[in-house]
């Protein structure tokens, strides 16, 4: 059987043209696509379903030379159906024009909402994650501070205890020495020694106070630095959240603008 190349090529062209028109957003082009596609398919049915022959009418053609009547009946049915659907699509084009002034098929708003919601969720999750990290940082720094504080107190207590012990020791030694040499030494020497010892004690106390002051200052500076750092982190976080919010708003705005553009009748048809 020979292959009828020309009708098949014509049918393929019609189907290809129809299919590419179906990808358009404009309902009128869709309609044209449906019509072309229908014609191409009908041509295909007639072509592939048997060799050509005489009209299948009893009494006019010899039964042996008739073309197969069944595909013709099928094509007639499908033409009628395509016509009905075309009429329906036309009325839909008209209704769309009545409602929006155009015939573009819009995106589904619910889809867009779900998509935006997921974006929103992602940003919110990122912000929550940062806040958690920040809280962990602050808690860690507070613990460190408390530890340092406790260590400082401990050290001061230890030093004070040591000092008291030394004073007691020196006092005891002095008493012993006075008992042993009390008669041999003149009272002025004793007074001199005592004053000397008091001076030394004064000196060491000043020194101790000086050290404590330095440690306190050091600690205050550290605390100030920590607070500074904390404020900085807070500010950075705030900036990040603001930025995320801005991005979110910009996305929503862009989306609205896109929809408005799509619905704007003045911009119709220049795609």
């Amino acid at each position: 059987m020979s292959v009828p190349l020309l009708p098949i090529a014509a049918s393929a062209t019609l189907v290809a043209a129809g299919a590419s028109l179906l990808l358009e957003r404009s309902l009128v082009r869709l309609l044209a696509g449906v019509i072309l596609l229908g014609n191409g398919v009908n041509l295909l049915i007639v072509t592939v379903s048997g060799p050509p022959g005489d009209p299948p009418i009893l009494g006019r053609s010899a039964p042996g030379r008739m073309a197969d009547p069944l595909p013709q009946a099928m094509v007639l049915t499908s033409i009628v159906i395509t016509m009905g659907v075309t009429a329906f699509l036309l009325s839909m084009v008209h209704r769309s024009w009545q409602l929006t002034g155009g015939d573009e098929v819009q995106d589904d708003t619910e889809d867009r909402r779900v998509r935006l919601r997921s974006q929103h969720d992602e940003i919110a999750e990122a912000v929550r994650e940062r806040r958690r990290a920040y809280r962990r940082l602050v808690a860690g720094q507070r613990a460190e501070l408390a530890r340092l504080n406790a260590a400082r107190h401990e050290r001061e207590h230890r030093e004070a205890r040591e000092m008291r012990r030394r004073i007691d020791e020196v006092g005891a030694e002095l008493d012993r020495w006075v008992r042993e040499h009390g008669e041999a030494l003149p009272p002025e020497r004793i007074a001199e020694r005592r004053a000397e010892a008091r001076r030394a004690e004064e000196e060491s106390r000043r020194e101790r106070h000086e050290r404590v002051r330095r440690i306190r200052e050091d600690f205050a500076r550290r605390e100030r630095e920590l607070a500074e750092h904390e404020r900085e982190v807070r500010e950075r976080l705030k900036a990040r959240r603001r930025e995320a919010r801005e991005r979110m708003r910009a996305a929503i705005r862009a989306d609205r603008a896109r929809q408005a553009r799509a619905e704007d009748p003045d911009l119709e048809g220049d795609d």
Partner: protein
Amino acid sequence: MESLIPVPVVLPLLAAALKLAIGGRLRRTQAFISVGTLAVVLAVSLVLLVAADRQGPLVTNAGGWPAPFGISLVADRLATVMLTVSSAVTLCVMVFSQAQAYADQEQAAPLAIFHPAYLIMSAGVSDAFLTGDLFNLFVAFEMLLSGSYVLLTFGGTESRVRAGATYAVVALVSSMLFLVAIAVTYGATGTVSMAQLAERFTPLPGSVRLLVELTLLLVFVVKAAVFPMSGWLPDSYPTAPAPATALFAGLLTKVGVYSIIRLEALLFPGGPVGGLLMWAALATMLLGVLGAAAQTDIKRMLSFTLVSHIGYMVFGVALFSVGGVAGAVLYTVHHITVQTSLFLVAGMIERRTGTTSVDRLGGLLGLAPLISVLFFIPAMNLAGIPPMSGFLGKLALVRAGVADGSPMALTLVAGGLVTSLLTLYAVAMTWNRAFWRTPPPDVPGAGTVLEGEESTEDEEGPEGAEGPEGAESPEGAGGSEGAEGSGERGGPGGPGGPDEPRGPGEIRGPGEPGAGRARGTEGITGREIVTSVRMPPPMIGATAALVALGLSYTVLAGPLSAFTVRTAAELLARRPYISAVLGSGR
């Protein structure tokens, strides 16, 4: 007995013609015609079901043309069980839609347009189940599609036109593909009678067979919304009027599933596409249910679970064993009923509160206990909680999958169980947020949603751009909105609020949409929707009947599963069908 076979196709068509001729007049007669027609169809389907089960496939030839040349209508077990369930569902949804239209004071447009389109669609569905002719199956698809185009874009609001465009284009492309497949089939075999095709495909070269099988499969997969072809469904279904969505969800995808079963069992038994179908089923189940978990709108959530659960049926078919096909048939029967009742309940929630978005719902258990119960039972049924039919269908499929034992089948079993769990998660989340939690302060307090646009506002349509302002003005004139709102909230607070008897006239006086305890909210269509406490009893009755039907599958589990096994055995044997159509001598 054979002469009854064309009734489910011809009777609704005649009724549709009659109703088109009557137009918007004679409301009671019209209601009687619609419900009566569908009730007769249901009765005939039941008779055919019993007869087909007792005697084997029944055949009648349209116009008296003998079998391979004329169009045969074949009522075998599969066709009649689908027909019975679908006509029961169709009848319930028709009662529901009539009650809704009556309560909305919309008589003309539903009677003149909605009912005829509905009847034509139901005729198309019946024809698709009964026909034994590939080209007639195409015609049946076109009948049900043209009915569904009208139902989906009913009222012609902007969102419905948008959804309708998506739906119509996808349906058209698949129809064109169907025609191409028919052309190839006819060119290769010289017949479109399915019984004869079953014999003539066998000697064809493998590549030609595969081409025809894949093309036809693609067509039916688009109709059934199996995964890569499922994107159109959640975008188009939720915007349609509630009864239309319910019917689409129950029937249209199942027509696709039915066609896949017929194709794989009768025309290409044991073809090489089983593995492909398994993958498609797995992807459909998992991606569908993940989509469902992400939604905040009840109708969209239900649309995604609808897609997801199609995967179970495809899985059963792909197993290609008696157990698998029986499980698929059982699951289809269960799913038609449950999914339809869930969508009807979603419609009632919308009438009650003005929205189906779970973000704006809350505390419905206290506000509307009856609706809550009607939602809870089919939702749990859908998720497959044990004694209910969802569990039975899944159990049958899991057993068939384990009996098959191949790694792919076991993967599918695991995927099915995960899907079932995620379905439970999705419906439980909806339940928790819409029914369980304390209502957020801006939740509308009362009422039934009336989509006022269909009748009263169509007359305002030609005024064009002034539509929205026109819809708002009666509210502004009707005094302070806050006073109305608080008045409403007092209503449902009392015990048994929804059941409080109120005359329909009290809900909304004709011509004054903002009066009484009705209240305007923004609906899915963007037009005014009026909510009120009272739910018309027929709406509740129809939904409850469907829920009860879903539960009755549990009671009838023994006979039903035995019947599905007989169905599957008959399908896979093929001989009963072929010899019934072509004569036993063949």
